[in-house]
């Protein structure tokens, strides 16, 4: 392992102090993992990456952290659930298999995952154009991940999981399973009016939380 230079550490701390206004000393326990990291969140992430690199069983923590980002990015590109799931699985299998080749160079781990995801989306659309001369799914030149949109969508997906149970179930059945209000009403033993109210309340709550900025 490379030795930590005093200069590197001090410049990290000075940046961190400027950024957070908190004294750097409280962070000393993360020193090894956080060298060259630009923010505490990146330091945390680097810690997780290094843990998974030495023990693949700890990859699950990285998956938990990034699943919504990767899936949301791919789903927005391919507009087909089966394909989105296929490609998302591929990205995480590949990331797990090649984890040792990932090197921290100030590039966040999510950027590495999204590069794998971008390649997977491009590969698929090129294969589709070869298979079908008249494809309705041409390669997309604007494939570059839009981090703001990705973070927005990932945050929304995580908020859905925190909805009250019945609202969460209505959202899942309506938007994922694409069941009708009538079907959901039957399944939940509620009236159609009640299910519509639950859908409304869930979306209002999500909207308020997304606008309020607190996840």
């Amino acid at each position, binding site marked *: 392992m490379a030795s930590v230079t005093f200069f590197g550490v001090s410049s990290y701390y000075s940046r961190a102090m400027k950024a957070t206004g908190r004294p750097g000393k409280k962070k000393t326990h993360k020193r090894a993992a956080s060298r060259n990291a630009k923010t505490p969140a990146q330091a945390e992430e680097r810690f997780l990456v290094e843990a998974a690199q030495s023990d*693949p*069983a700890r*990859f*699950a923590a990285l*998956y*938990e952290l990034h*699943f*919504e980002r990767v*899936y*949301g990015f791919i*789903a927005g590109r391919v507009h*087909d*659930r*089966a*394909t*989105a*799931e*296929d490609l*998302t*699985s*591929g990205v*995480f*299998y*590949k990331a*797990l*298999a090649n*984890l040792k080749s990932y090197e921290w160079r100030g590039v966040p781990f999510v950027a590495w995952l999204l590069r794998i995801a971008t390649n997977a989306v491009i590969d698929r659309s090129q*294969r589709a154009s070869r298979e*079908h001369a*008249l494809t*309705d799914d041409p390669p997309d030149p604007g494939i570059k991940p839009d981090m703001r949109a990705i973070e*927005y*969508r990932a945050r*929304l*997906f995580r908020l*859905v999981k925190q909805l009250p149970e019945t609202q969460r179930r209505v*959202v*899942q059945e*309506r*938007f*994922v*399973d*694409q*069941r*009708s*209000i*009538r*079907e959901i009403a*039957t399944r939940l033993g509620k009236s*159609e*009016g009640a299910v*519509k*109210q639950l*859908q*409304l309340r869930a*979306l*209002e709550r*999500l*909207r308020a939380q*997304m606008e309020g900025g607190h996840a």
Partner: protein
Amino acid sequence: MPKHLPKRPLADQLEEVVQAMLVSLQPRPEKSPHRDVAPLLSIARELRFLPREEFRATLKSDLQRRASMSVNEGTESAAAATAKAVHYMRPGFTSITPYIIVNGASQFIDFLKHAFDGVERLRVPAPDGTLMHSEVAIGNGIIEAGDANAQIPPAPTDIHLYVNNADATFDRALAAGATSIYRPTDEHPSGDRWGALKDPFGNRWYIATPRGWTPGPEGLRSIQPYLHLREAHKMIPFLEAAFGAEDVGTHKTPEGRVLHSTMRIGNATLEIDEAHGEYQPKPCVLHVYVPNADAMYAQALRVGATSVEPPTDKPYGDRSAGVKDPFGNTWYLNTFLGR
């Protein structure tokens, strides 16, 4: 000064635009739109991409299993095998696709393009120029078609097709060669605007635009096979037992005759009713994606289906088995194995 038009409740307005968004149709214009509908719809648009919880959990346990094994051994093939187990539908397909066998499949494809804005996805010609297989996307579904021959007789199918504008589609279908049974009307018992026509290939089309949106028709798919059956009430328990179908709405006469029933398999639906008048049984071919073709084939045989073809791996990348139901319809039970 006239009073304001009464506003429909926000929950109803929201459901209408959500329903329209999910089936890619235009909602009818709202007379007095609620100002909260637009921002809620933008949340709803994002929710279309919401992942399946089961998928998130399954992939996580796959990764944990893989991580606990030797990470560097056989990475690609093991990953591919797991992916196969998780994703059983060929991309672009829904759970139920009608497989229509006609004389003149090429002309049939032209008809689908002209009448219904069909988009050709695939065409596999035989050496003699007839079509062994083809796929045409219409709305959010697919129709498969092939030419009949000495071994495979024609199997026309009745289809309930949801479109943006039943009247306009109806007229285009007539221009493309179809014959009217009756023009779209608001008087159909479904409550939808609904018309019926026959194409030159022996298929009947029920062209409908859903009205009112709430309560919407169950499980709105652009393409729903419509089976007119003798003793249709016996089909419902058969579909449940053989294919794990779910009854999402059945209307019967007091004597138990099925007036209409919608059955869901996976993410798609088909409709059945008791054969009547000119709407007589027409054994058809349906192509169904299932998580495990072998298991469903065995299950179907246990509850009264007969074998057409045991499960085999197909060169096009599906594992496929064929069964015939007690009504004479053929079901291909497929599991997508990957590319």
